Protein backbone atom coordinates (compact mmCIF):
# COMPACT_ATOMS: atom_id res chain seq x y z
CA UNK A 1 0.00 0.00 0.00
CA UNK A 2 1.32 3.42 -0.96
CA UNK A 3 1.11 6.12 1.69
CA UNK A 4 2.28 9.69 1.46
CA UNK A 5 5.29 10.36 3.68
CA UNK A 6 4.18 11.14 7.21
CA UNK A 7 5.70 14.62 7.18
CA UNK A 8 3.42 15.82 4.35
CA UNK A 9 0.16 17.15 5.67
CA UNK A 10 -2.81 17.32 3.30
CA UNK A 11 -3.77 20.81 2.16
CA UNK A 12 -7.46 20.05 2.29
CA UNK A 13 -8.89 17.40 4.56
CA UNK A 14 -12.55 16.42 4.42
CA UNK A 15 -13.58 14.22 7.33
CA UNK A 16 -16.88 12.36 7.29
CA UNK A 17 -18.61 15.26 5.56
CA UNK A 18 -22.38 15.06 5.38
CA UNK A 19 -24.22 17.76 3.48
CA UNK A 20 -27.92 18.44 3.70
CA UNK A 21 -30.23 20.62 1.69
CA UNK A 22 -33.40 22.05 3.06
CA UNK A 23 -36.20 21.16 0.71
CA UNK A 24 -39.24 23.40 0.47
CA UNK A 25 -41.51 20.50 -0.45
CA UNK A 26 -43.98 19.14 2.06
CA UNK A 27 -43.51 21.92 4.55
CA UNK A 28 -39.73 21.68 4.66
CA UNK A 29 -37.61 18.58 5.03
CA UNK A 30 -33.90 18.02 4.67
CA UNK A 31 -32.41 16.07 1.81
CA UNK A 32 -29.04 14.45 2.34
CA UNK A 33 -26.67 15.16 -0.54
CA UNK A 34 -23.59 13.36 0.78
CA UNK A 35 -23.05 11.00 3.66
CA UNK A 36 -19.77 10.64 5.56
CA UNK A 37 -17.40 11.53 2.74
CA UNK A 38 -13.71 11.69 3.64
CA UNK A 39 -10.77 12.52 1.41
CA UNK A 40 -7.42 14.27 1.52
CA UNK A 41 -6.09 16.65 -1.11
CA UNK A 42 -2.34 17.24 -1.08
CA UNK A 43 -0.51 20.22 -2.46
CA UNK A 44 -0.25 20.18 -6.26
CA UNK A 45 -2.87 17.45 -6.51
CA UNK A 46 -5.29 17.41 -9.40
CA UNK A 47 -8.03 15.84 -7.35
CA UNK A 48 -11.18 14.85 -9.20
CA UNK A 49 -14.62 14.25 -7.71
CA UNK A 50 -16.38 11.90 -10.11
CA UNK A 51 -19.84 10.46 -10.00
CA UNK A 52 -23.24 10.39 -11.65
CA UNK A 53 -25.62 13.29 -11.15
CA UNK A 54 -27.10 13.32 -7.68
CA UNK A 55 -23.94 12.10 -5.96
CA UNK A 56 -23.33 15.46 -4.32
CA UNK A 57 -20.01 16.17 -5.99
CA UNK A 58 -20.89 19.77 -6.75
CA UNK A 59 -22.21 20.16 -3.22
CA UNK A 60 -18.89 18.90 -1.85
CA UNK A 61 -17.06 21.47 -3.93
CA UNK A 62 -19.40 24.23 -2.75
CA UNK A 63 -18.79 23.09 0.82
CA UNK A 64 -15.04 23.29 0.25
CA UNK A 65 -15.59 26.78 -1.18
CA UNK A 66 -17.58 27.68 1.93
CA UNK A 67 -20.97 28.30 0.32
CA UNK A 68 -22.56 25.39 2.22
CA UNK A 69 -21.78 24.39 5.80
CA UNK A 70 -21.56 20.62 6.43
CA UNK A 71 -24.27 19.25 8.69
CA UNK A 72 -21.74 16.76 10.07
CA UNK A 73 -18.02 16.28 9.72
CA UNK A 74 -15.52 18.96 8.85
CA UNK A 75 -13.53 20.41 5.98
CA UNK A 76 -10.16 21.85 6.92
CA UNK A 77 -7.65 23.74 4.86
CA UNK A 78 -4.16 23.78 6.34
CA UNK A 79 -5.77 22.63 9.57
CA UNK A 80 -8.19 25.57 9.65
CA UNK A 81 -11.90 24.72 9.37
CA UNK A 82 -13.62 26.33 6.39
CA UNK A 83 -15.92 29.12 7.50
CA UNK A 84 -17.67 30.83 4.62
CA UNK A 85 -16.35 31.66 1.19
CA UNK A 86 -12.94 33.25 0.93
CA UNK A 87 -10.46 34.36 -1.71
CA UNK A 88 -7.96 31.59 -0.84
CA UNK A 89 -10.32 29.09 -2.50
CA UNK A 90 -11.43 30.42 -5.86
CA UNK A 91 -14.19 28.67 -7.76
CA UNK A 92 -14.52 28.38 -11.52
CA UNK A 93 -18.18 27.61 -12.17
CA UNK A 94 -19.75 25.79 -15.05
CA UNK A 95 -22.09 28.65 -15.96
CA UNK A 96 -20.87 31.43 -18.21
CA UNK A 97 -22.70 34.05 -16.14
CA UNK A 98 -20.01 33.88 -13.47
CA UNK A 99 -18.39 36.83 -15.25
CA UNK A 100 -20.04 40.17 -14.48
CA UNK A 101 -21.19 41.27 -17.96
CA UNK A 102 -20.57 44.95 -17.15
CA UNK A 103 -16.82 44.44 -16.79
CA UNK A 104 -14.36 43.99 -19.62
CA UNK A 105 -12.05 40.99 -19.65
CA UNK A 106 -9.34 43.05 -17.98
CA UNK A 107 -11.69 44.48 -15.35
CA UNK A 108 -13.06 41.01 -14.69
CA UNK A 109 -9.63 39.59 -13.93
CA UNK A 110 -8.67 42.66 -11.89
CA UNK A 111 -11.92 42.67 -9.95
CA UNK A 112 -11.10 40.12 -7.22
CA UNK A 113 -7.62 41.56 -6.76
CA UNK A 114 -9.16 44.96 -6.09
CA UNK A 115 -12.21 43.70 -4.20
CA UNK A 116 -10.00 41.88 -1.71
CA UNK A 117 -7.75 44.98 -1.53
CA UNK A 118 -4.80 42.75 -2.20
CA UNK A 119 -3.13 44.89 -4.84
CA UNK A 120 -3.15 48.52 -5.94
CA UNK A 121 -4.82 49.30 -9.25
CA UNK A 122 -1.61 49.48 -11.29
CA UNK A 123 -0.22 46.24 -9.86
CA UNK A 124 -3.58 44.52 -10.31
CA UNK A 125 -3.68 45.59 -13.94
CA UNK A 126 -0.18 44.30 -14.56
CA UNK A 127 -0.96 40.96 -13.01
CA UNK A 128 -4.29 40.71 -14.81
CA UNK A 129 -2.63 41.33 -18.18
CA UNK A 130 -0.08 38.65 -17.38
CA UNK A 131 -2.74 36.04 -16.68
CA UNK A 132 -4.93 37.03 -19.60
CA UNK A 133 -1.94 36.43 -21.85
CA UNK A 134 -1.27 33.12 -20.06
CA UNK A 135 -4.68 31.74 -20.98
CA UNK A 136 -4.22 32.92 -24.55
CA UNK A 137 -6.56 35.90 -24.55
CA UNK A 138 -4.00 38.63 -25.22
CA UNK A 139 -5.68 41.32 -27.33
CA UNK A 140 -9.12 40.74 -25.81
CA UNK A 141 -8.51 42.80 -22.67
CA UNK A 142 -11.12 45.42 -23.53
CA UNK A 143 -13.80 43.06 -24.82
CA UNK A 144 -16.99 42.59 -22.83
CA UNK A 145 -17.93 38.99 -21.96
CA UNK A 146 -20.99 38.88 -24.21
CA UNK A 147 -18.74 39.28 -27.24
CA UNK A 148 -16.69 36.18 -26.33
CA UNK A 149 -17.34 32.53 -27.11
CA UNK A 150 -18.04 30.04 -24.33
CA UNK A 151 -14.49 28.72 -24.30
CA UNK A 152 -13.06 32.22 -24.08
CA UNK A 153 -15.37 33.08 -21.19
CA UNK A 154 -14.14 30.03 -19.30
CA UNK A 155 -10.56 31.10 -20.01
CA UNK A 156 -11.32 34.48 -18.47
CA UNK A 157 -12.77 32.75 -15.42
CA UNK A 158 -9.65 30.59 -15.15
CA UNK A 159 -7.38 33.62 -15.55
CA UNK A 160 -9.37 35.44 -12.89
CA UNK A 161 -9.04 32.50 -10.53
CA UNK A 162 -5.32 31.94 -11.15
CA UNK A 163 -4.52 35.66 -10.82
CA UNK A 164 -5.69 35.39 -7.22
CA UNK A 165 -3.03 32.70 -6.66
CA UNK A 166 -5.42 30.71 -4.48
CA UNK A 167 -4.34 27.93 -2.15
CA UNK A 168 -6.67 25.69 -4.03
CA UNK A 169 -8.49 26.10 -7.32
CA UNK A 170 -12.00 24.68 -7.29
CA UNK A 171 -13.53 23.84 -10.65
CA UNK A 172 -17.17 22.82 -10.87
CA UNK A 173 -17.61 21.07 -14.24
CA UNK A 174 -15.89 24.04 -15.87
CA UNK A 175 -15.93 22.55 -19.37
CA UNK A 176 -19.32 20.85 -19.30
CA UNK A 177 -21.07 23.67 -21.17
CA UNK A 178 -18.47 23.73 -23.94
CA UNK A 179 -18.55 21.90 -27.25
CA UNK A 180 -16.45 18.76 -27.50
CA UNK A 181 -13.59 20.27 -29.52
CA UNK A 182 -13.26 23.33 -27.29
CA UNK A 183 -13.46 21.12 -24.22
CA UNK A 184 -10.54 19.00 -25.37
CA UNK A 185 -8.60 22.16 -26.08
CA UNK A 186 -9.29 23.52 -22.61
CA UNK A 187 -8.31 20.24 -20.93
CA UNK A 188 -5.04 20.37 -22.78
CA UNK A 189 -4.46 23.93 -21.71
CA UNK A 190 -5.35 23.26 -18.10
CA UNK A 191 -2.77 20.47 -18.15
CA UNK A 192 -0.19 22.80 -19.64
CA UNK A 193 -0.88 25.47 -17.01
CA UNK A 194 -0.62 22.90 -14.26
CA UNK A 195 2.70 21.60 -15.61
CA UNK A 196 4.00 25.12 -15.36
CA UNK A 197 2.47 26.31 -12.09
CA UNK A 198 1.69 23.16 -10.06
CA UNK A 199 -1.36 24.64 -8.39
CA UNK A 200 -3.70 22.52 -6.31
CA UNK A 201 -6.88 21.64 -8.13
CA UNK A 202 -10.17 20.19 -6.97
CA UNK A 203 -12.14 19.31 -10.07
CA UNK A 204 -15.72 18.10 -10.37
CA UNK A 205 -16.86 16.21 -13.44
CA UNK A 206 -19.35 13.57 -14.52
CA UNK A 207 -17.19 12.43 -17.41
CA UNK A 208 -14.97 9.41 -16.78
CA UNK A 209 -12.60 10.34 -19.61
CA UNK A 210 -12.22 13.89 -18.37
CA UNK A 211 -11.52 12.63 -14.85
CA UNK A 212 -8.78 10.30 -16.11
CA UNK A 213 -7.22 12.95 -18.33
CA UNK A 214 -7.37 15.91 -15.94
CA UNK A 215 -6.80 14.28 -12.56
CA UNK A 216 -4.00 12.45 -10.80
CA UNK A 217 -6.36 11.12 -8.16
CA UNK A 218 -10.04 10.34 -8.50
CA UNK A 219 -12.68 10.06 -5.81
CA UNK A 220 -15.61 8.00 -7.03
CA UNK A 221 -18.96 8.81 -5.45
CA UNK A 222 -22.17 6.80 -5.49
CA UNK A 223 -25.49 8.63 -5.79
CA UNK A 224 -28.37 9.39 -3.37
CA UNK A 225 -26.74 10.24 -1.02
CA UNK A 226 -23.15 10.57 -2.17
CA UNK A 227 -20.81 8.08 -0.53
CA UNK A 228 -17.24 7.23 -1.38
CA UNK A 229 -17.15 4.24 -3.72
CA UNK A 230 -13.42 4.23 -4.44
CA UNK A 231 -10.33 6.39 -4.58
CA UNK A 232 -8.13 5.73 -7.61
CA UNK A 233 -4.91 6.95 -9.19
CA UNK A 234 -4.91 8.40 -12.68
CA UNK A 235 -1.59 10.23 -12.77
CA UNK A 236 -0.40 7.85 -15.51
CA UNK A 237 -2.96 9.15 -18.03
CA UNK A 238 -2.81 12.23 -20.19
CA UNK A 239 -4.61 13.43 -23.28
CA UNK A 240 -2.35 11.23 -25.45
CA UNK A 241 -3.38 8.05 -23.70
CA UNK A 242 -7.06 8.49 -24.48
CA UNK A 243 -7.17 5.60 -26.92
CA UNK A 244 -4.73 3.21 -25.22
CA UNK A 245 -5.63 -0.19 -23.81
CA UNK A 246 -4.86 0.81 -20.19
CA UNK A 247 -7.05 3.86 -20.57
CA UNK A 248 -9.90 1.74 -21.88
CA UNK A 249 -9.40 -0.67 -18.99
CA UNK A 250 -9.46 2.14 -16.44
CA UNK A 251 -12.62 3.54 -18.03
CA UNK A 252 -14.27 0.14 -17.83
CA UNK A 253 -13.18 -0.31 -14.24
CA UNK A 254 -14.62 3.04 -13.16
CA UNK A 255 -17.77 2.36 -15.11
CA UNK A 256 -18.31 -0.95 -13.37
CA UNK A 257 -17.47 0.57 -9.99
CA UNK A 258 -20.07 3.27 -10.53
CA UNK A 259 -22.80 1.13 -12.00
CA UNK A 260 -21.98 -2.18 -10.30
CA UNK A 261 -22.33 -4.12 -13.51
CA UNK A 262 -19.70 -4.65 -16.18
CA UNK A 263 -20.50 -2.48 -19.18
CA UNK A 264 -22.03 -4.20 -22.16
CA UNK A 265 -20.03 -4.61 -25.31
CA UNK A 266 -21.83 -1.75 -27.03
CA UNK A 267 -20.97 0.67 -24.20
CA UNK A 268 -17.34 -0.40 -24.20
CA UNK A 269 -17.01 0.46 -27.87
CA UNK A 270 -18.91 3.73 -27.76
CA UNK A 271 -18.57 5.40 -24.35
CA UNK A 272 -21.61 7.29 -23.21
CA UNK A 273 -22.42 10.46 -25.06
CA UNK A 274 -21.32 13.06 -22.55
CA UNK A 275 -17.80 11.74 -22.73
CA UNK A 276 -17.25 13.41 -26.07
CA UNK A 277 -13.51 13.09 -26.40
Amino acid at each position, binding site marked *: MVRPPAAVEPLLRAEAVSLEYRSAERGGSTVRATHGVSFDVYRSDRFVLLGPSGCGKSSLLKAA*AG*FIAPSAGSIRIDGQPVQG*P*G*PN*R*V*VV*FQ*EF*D*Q*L*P*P*WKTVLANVM*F*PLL*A*TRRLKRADAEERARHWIAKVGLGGFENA*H*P*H*TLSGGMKQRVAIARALA*MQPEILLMDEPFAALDALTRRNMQEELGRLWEELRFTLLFVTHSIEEALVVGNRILLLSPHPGQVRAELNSHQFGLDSAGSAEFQAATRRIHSLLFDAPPTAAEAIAPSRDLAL
Partner: protein
Amino acid sequence: MTLLLEPPIRQEYEYAVAAPGRLAVERPLPPAQRLWAQAWLRKTLILLALAGLWELAARWQGNDLLLPGFLQTARAFVDGIASGELLARVRTSLLVLLQGYLAGIVAAFALTALAASTRIGRDLLETLTAMFNPLPAIALLPLALLWFGLGRTSLVFVIVHAVLWPLALGAYTGFQGVPETLRMAGRNYGLRGLRLVLHILVPAALPAILSGLKIGWAFAWRTLIAAELVFGTTAGQGGLGWYIFQNRNELYTDKVFAGLAAVILIGLLVDNLVFRALERVTVRRWGMAR
Protein backbone atom coordinates in the same frame (compact mmCIF):
# COMPACT_ATOMS: atom_id res chain seq x y z
CA MET B 1 -36.12 -2.64 -58.03
CA THR B 2 -34.89 -3.17 -54.53
CA LEU B 3 -36.46 -1.33 -51.58
CA LEU B 4 -33.17 -1.19 -49.68
CA LEU B 5 -31.49 1.90 -51.11
CA GLU B 6 -27.87 2.13 -50.13
CA PRO B 7 -26.35 5.59 -50.50
CA PRO B 8 -23.53 5.48 -53.06
CA ILE B 9 -19.96 5.38 -51.82
CA ARG B 10 -18.25 8.53 -53.00
CA GLN B 11 -14.75 9.77 -53.49
CA GLU B 12 -13.08 11.58 -50.53
CA TYR B 13 -11.84 15.11 -51.16
CA GLU B 14 -9.43 17.46 -49.42
CA TYR B 15 -9.37 21.14 -50.29
CA ALA B 16 -6.90 23.93 -49.57
CA VAL B 17 -8.65 26.77 -47.71
CA ALA B 18 -7.97 30.42 -48.52
CA ALA B 19 -5.99 32.10 -45.75
CA PRO B 20 -8.17 34.06 -43.33
CA GLY B 21 -8.10 37.74 -44.25
CA ARG B 22 -8.11 36.96 -47.95
CA LEU B 23 -11.88 36.56 -47.92
CA ALA B 24 -13.98 39.60 -47.09
CA VAL B 25 -15.91 38.56 -43.98
CA GLU B 26 -17.58 41.92 -43.35
CA ARG B 27 -19.53 43.83 -45.98
CA PRO B 28 -21.05 47.31 -45.45
CA LEU B 29 -24.80 47.65 -45.94
CA PRO B 30 -26.12 49.76 -48.84
CA PRO B 31 -26.57 53.47 -47.90
CA ALA B 32 -30.37 53.40 -47.79
CA GLN B 33 -30.36 50.50 -45.29
CA ARG B 34 -27.67 52.21 -43.25
CA LEU B 35 -29.78 55.37 -43.07
CA TRP B 36 -32.89 53.41 -42.10
CA ALA B 37 -30.88 51.78 -39.30
CA GLN B 38 -30.62 55.18 -37.57
CA ALA B 39 -33.22 55.21 -34.79
CA TRP B 40 -33.37 59.02 -34.63
CA LEU B 41 -34.31 59.22 -38.29
CA ARG B 42 -37.11 56.69 -37.95
CA LYS B 43 -38.42 58.46 -34.86
CA THR B 44 -38.27 61.88 -36.49
CA LEU B 45 -40.33 60.52 -39.37
CA ILE B 46 -42.91 59.19 -36.90
CA LEU B 47 -43.10 62.59 -35.21
CA LEU B 48 -43.48 64.39 -38.53
CA ALA B 49 -46.25 62.00 -39.58
CA LEU B 50 -48.08 62.58 -36.28
CA ALA B 51 -47.76 66.36 -36.64
CA GLY B 52 -49.11 66.17 -40.19
CA LEU B 53 -52.12 64.10 -39.08
CA TRP B 54 -52.80 66.56 -36.27
CA GLU B 55 -52.68 69.55 -38.60
CA LEU B 56 -55.01 67.82 -41.07
CA ALA B 57 -57.48 66.90 -38.33
CA ALA B 58 -57.47 70.48 -37.01
CA ARG B 59 -58.04 71.96 -40.51
CA TRP B 60 -60.89 69.51 -41.12
CA GLN B 61 -62.46 70.31 -37.75
CA GLY B 62 -61.99 74.01 -38.25
CA ASN B 63 -62.50 75.27 -34.67
CA ASP B 64 -59.32 76.48 -33.03
CA LEU B 65 -61.04 76.94 -29.69
CA LEU B 66 -61.49 73.18 -29.49
CA LEU B 67 -58.55 71.87 -31.48
CA PRO B 68 -55.81 74.26 -32.58
CA GLY B 69 -53.58 72.84 -35.29
CA PHE B 70 -49.94 71.93 -35.11
CA LEU B 71 -48.76 75.18 -36.69
CA GLN B 72 -50.87 77.34 -34.38
CA THR B 73 -49.62 75.43 -31.36
CA ALA B 74 -46.06 75.72 -32.56
CA ARG B 75 -46.53 79.50 -32.89
CA ALA B 76 -47.96 79.73 -29.35
CA PHE B 77 -45.08 77.59 -28.11
CA VAL B 78 -42.46 79.77 -29.77
CA ASP B 79 -44.18 82.91 -28.43
CA GLY B 80 -44.22 81.41 -24.95
CA ILE B 81 -40.52 80.63 -25.17
CA ALA B 82 -39.72 84.05 -26.59
CA SER B 83 -41.62 85.91 -23.89
CA GLY B 84 -39.90 83.78 -21.27
CA GLU B 85 -43.15 82.82 -19.56
CA LEU B 86 -43.13 79.19 -20.66
CA LEU B 87 -39.48 78.77 -19.79
CA ALA B 88 -40.03 80.16 -16.29
CA ARG B 89 -42.92 77.74 -15.78
CA VAL B 90 -40.86 74.82 -17.02
CA ARG B 91 -38.00 75.78 -14.70
CA THR B 92 -40.31 75.94 -11.68
CA SER B 93 -41.82 72.55 -12.49
CA LEU B 94 -38.47 70.89 -13.24
CA LEU B 95 -36.91 72.12 -9.99
CA VAL B 96 -39.67 70.62 -7.88
CA LEU B 97 -39.67 67.50 -10.04
CA LEU B 98 -35.94 66.89 -9.71
CA GLN B 99 -36.01 67.37 -5.95
CA GLY B 100 -38.79 64.84 -5.55
CA TYR B 101 -37.27 62.44 -8.06
CA LEU B 102 -33.82 62.39 -6.45
CA ALA B 103 -35.27 62.05 -2.96
CA GLY B 104 -37.42 59.17 -4.24
CA ILE B 105 -34.38 57.43 -5.78
CA VAL B 106 -32.39 57.69 -2.55
CA ALA B 107 -35.30 56.32 -0.51
CA ALA B 108 -35.89 53.50 -3.00
CA PHE B 109 -32.22 52.54 -2.96
CA ALA B 110 -32.12 52.45 0.85
CA LEU B 111 -35.24 50.30 0.93
CA THR B 112 -34.06 47.81 -1.71
CA ALA B 113 -30.53 47.56 -0.29
CA LEU B 114 -32.13 46.65 3.02
CA ALA B 115 -34.38 44.16 1.25
CA ALA B 116 -31.41 42.60 -0.57
CA SER B 117 -29.44 41.95 2.61
CA THR B 118 -32.02 41.08 5.29
CA ARG B 119 -35.15 38.98 5.41
CA ILE B 120 -37.10 41.48 7.49
CA GLY B 121 -36.15 44.18 4.97
CA ARG B 122 -37.57 41.99 2.22
CA ASP B 123 -40.84 41.56 4.12
CA LEU B 124 -40.95 45.30 4.78
CA LEU B 125 -40.46 46.16 1.11
CA GLU B 126 -43.00 43.63 -0.10
CA THR B 127 -45.62 44.82 2.38
CA LEU B 128 -45.04 48.53 1.79
CA THR B 129 -45.06 48.32 -2.01
CA ALA B 130 -48.19 46.18 -1.96
CA MET B 131 -49.85 48.80 0.27
CA PHE B 132 -48.70 52.04 -1.32
CA ASN B 133 -47.99 51.29 -4.98
CA PRO B 134 -51.70 51.19 -5.95
CA LEU B 135 -52.38 54.40 -3.97
CA PRO B 136 -52.48 57.39 -6.40
CA ALA B 137 -50.03 60.03 -5.26
CA ILE B 138 -52.52 62.77 -6.06
CA ALA B 139 -54.88 61.30 -3.47
CA LEU B 140 -52.28 62.09 -0.83
CA LEU B 141 -52.06 65.74 -1.82
CA PRO B 142 -54.90 66.97 0.46
CA LEU B 143 -53.15 65.30 3.38
CA ALA B 144 -49.78 66.70 2.33
CA LEU B 145 -51.24 70.21 2.12
CA LEU B 146 -52.63 69.75 5.62
CA TRP B 147 -49.27 68.61 6.97
CA PHE B 148 -46.78 70.71 5.05
CA GLY B 149 -48.87 73.67 3.99
CA LEU B 150 -49.42 75.16 0.58
CA GLY B 151 -45.84 75.01 -0.63
CA ARG B 152 -43.14 73.14 -2.40
CA THR B 153 -42.75 70.55 0.40
CA SER B 154 -46.19 69.15 -0.31
CA LEU B 155 -45.43 68.73 -3.98
CA VAL B 156 -42.08 67.08 -3.25
CA PHE B 157 -43.81 64.75 -0.83
CA VAL B 158 -46.33 63.47 -3.36
CA ILE B 159 -43.62 63.14 -6.04
CA VAL B 160 -41.48 61.04 -3.70
CA HIS B 161 -44.50 58.86 -3.14
CA ALA B 162 -45.02 58.56 -6.90
CA VAL B 163 -41.38 57.60 -7.58
CA LEU B 164 -40.46 55.49 -4.58
CA TRP B 165 -42.75 52.48 -4.93
CA PRO B 166 -42.46 51.64 -8.64
CA LEU B 167 -38.69 52.16 -8.52
CA ALA B 168 -38.27 50.06 -5.38
CA LEU B 169 -40.41 47.32 -6.91
CA GLY B 170 -38.42 47.38 -10.17
CA ALA B 171 -35.02 47.34 -8.47
CA TYR B 172 -36.11 44.58 -6.10
CA THR B 173 -37.37 42.45 -9.00
CA GLY B 174 -34.02 43.06 -10.70
CA PHE B 175 -32.09 41.98 -7.60
CA GLN B 176 -34.09 38.78 -7.43
CA GLY B 177 -33.24 37.99 -11.03
CA VAL B 178 -29.47 38.18 -10.50
CA PRO B 179 -28.01 34.74 -11.33
CA GLU B 180 -26.94 32.72 -8.30
CA THR B 181 -23.56 32.04 -9.92
CA LEU B 182 -22.83 35.75 -10.10
CA ARG B 183 -23.70 36.21 -6.43
CA MET B 184 -21.48 33.28 -5.50
CA ALA B 185 -18.63 34.67 -7.60
CA GLY B 186 -18.93 37.93 -5.68
CA ARG B 187 -19.10 36.22 -2.31
CA ASN B 188 -16.11 34.12 -3.32
CA TYR B 189 -14.02 37.28 -3.22
CA GLY B 190 -15.29 38.23 0.21
CA LEU B 191 -17.96 40.72 -0.86
CA ARG B 192 -20.95 40.95 1.44
CA GLY B 193 -23.66 43.36 2.59
CA LEU B 194 -23.52 46.80 1.00
CA ARG B 195 -20.39 46.03 -1.06
CA LEU B 196 -22.11 43.01 -2.63
CA VAL B 197 -25.11 45.22 -3.41
CA LEU B 198 -22.98 47.95 -5.00
CA HIS B 199 -20.48 45.78 -6.86
CA ILE B 200 -22.69 42.91 -8.00
CA LEU B 201 -26.42 43.39 -7.46
CA VAL B 202 -26.90 46.95 -8.71
CA PRO B 203 -25.01 46.53 -12.02
CA ALA B 204 -26.51 43.08 -12.60
CA ALA B 205 -30.02 44.42 -11.97
CA LEU B 206 -29.46 47.60 -13.98
CA PRO B 207 -31.94 46.78 -16.79
CA ALA B 208 -34.72 46.47 -14.22
CA ILE B 209 -33.49 49.52 -12.28
CA LEU B 210 -33.41 51.61 -15.46
CA SER B 211 -36.94 50.62 -16.34
CA GLY B 212 -37.94 51.50 -12.75
CA LEU B 213 -36.27 54.89 -13.15
CA LYS B 214 -38.18 55.52 -16.38
CA ILE B 215 -41.50 54.56 -14.83
CA GLY B 216 -40.68 56.68 -11.79
CA TRP B 217 -39.85 59.65 -13.99
CA ALA B 218 -43.16 59.34 -15.84
CA PHE B 219 -45.13 58.97 -12.60
CA ALA B 220 -43.38 62.01 -11.15
CA TRP B 221 -44.36 64.14 -14.14
CA ARG B 222 -47.96 62.98 -14.06
CA THR B 223 -48.22 63.61 -10.37
CA LEU B 224 -46.68 67.05 -10.56
CA ILE B 225 -48.83 68.28 -13.46
CA ALA B 226 -51.96 66.83 -11.88
CA ALA B 227 -51.15 68.42 -8.53
CA GLU B 228 -50.64 71.81 -10.14
CA LEU B 229 -53.84 71.44 -12.15
CA VAL B 230 -55.91 70.53 -9.14
CA PHE B 231 -54.44 72.77 -6.48
CA GLY B 232 -52.98 75.50 -8.60
CA THR B 233 -50.05 77.59 -7.73
CA THR B 234 -47.73 77.50 -4.78
CA ALA B 235 -46.75 80.91 -3.45
CA GLY B 236 -47.55 82.70 -6.69
CA GLN B 237 -44.95 80.78 -8.71
CA GLY B 238 -46.87 78.26 -10.77
CA GLY B 239 -45.42 75.51 -12.87
CA LEU B 240 -46.51 74.01 -16.17
CA GLY B 241 -49.69 72.52 -14.76
CA TRP B 242 -50.75 75.93 -13.50
CA TYR B 243 -49.91 77.43 -16.92
CA ILE B 244 -52.19 74.90 -18.62
CA PHE B 245 -54.97 75.44 -16.07
CA GLN B 246 -54.82 79.24 -16.30
CA ASN B 247 -54.89 79.33 -20.09
CA ARG B 248 -57.79 76.90 -20.24
CA ASN B 249 -59.77 79.22 -17.99
CA GLU B 250 -59.03 82.08 -20.37
CA LEU B 251 -59.78 79.88 -23.39
CA TYR B 252 -56.30 80.25 -24.88
CA THR B 253 -56.52 76.71 -26.18
CA ASP B 254 -53.40 77.06 -28.31
CA LYS B 255 -51.44 77.94 -25.16
CA VAL B 256 -52.95 74.91 -23.39
CA PHE B 257 -51.62 72.82 -26.24
CA ALA B 258 -48.26 74.58 -26.02
CA GLY B 259 -48.08 73.68 -22.32
CA LEU B 260 -48.92 70.06 -23.09
CA ALA B 261 -46.36 70.10 -25.88
CA ALA B 262 -43.73 71.30 -23.39
CA VAL B 263 -44.50 68.30 -21.15
CA ILE B 264 -44.23 65.98 -24.15
CA LEU B 265 -41.02 67.58 -25.42
CA ILE B 266 -39.33 67.30 -22.04
CA GLY B 267 -40.44 63.68 -21.88
CA LEU B 268 -38.98 62.97 -25.33
CA LEU B 269 -35.74 64.79 -24.54
CA VAL B 270 -35.19 63.03 -21.22
CA ASP B 271 -36.02 59.64 -22.70
CA ASN B 272 -33.80 60.04 -25.74
CA LEU B 273 -30.91 61.99 -24.24
CA VAL B 274 -30.69 60.85 -20.63
CA PHE B 275 -32.13 57.35 -20.46
CA ARG B 276 -31.09 56.25 -23.94
CA ALA B 277 -27.53 57.48 -23.34
CA LEU B 278 -27.47 55.76 -19.96
CA GLU B 279 -28.60 52.53 -21.60
CA ARG B 280 -26.03 52.84 -24.36
CA VAL B 281 -23.05 53.16 -22.03
CA THR B 282 -24.32 50.48 -19.66
CA VAL B 283 -26.72 47.64 -20.41
CA ARG B 284 -26.34 47.75 -24.19
CA ARG B 285 -22.57 47.84 -24.02
CA TRP B 286 -22.61 44.95 -21.58
CA GLY B 287 -24.88 42.86 -23.79
CA MET B 288 -27.61 42.76 -21.14
CA ALA B 289 -30.16 44.38 -23.45
CA ARG B 290 -30.49 44.76 -27.17
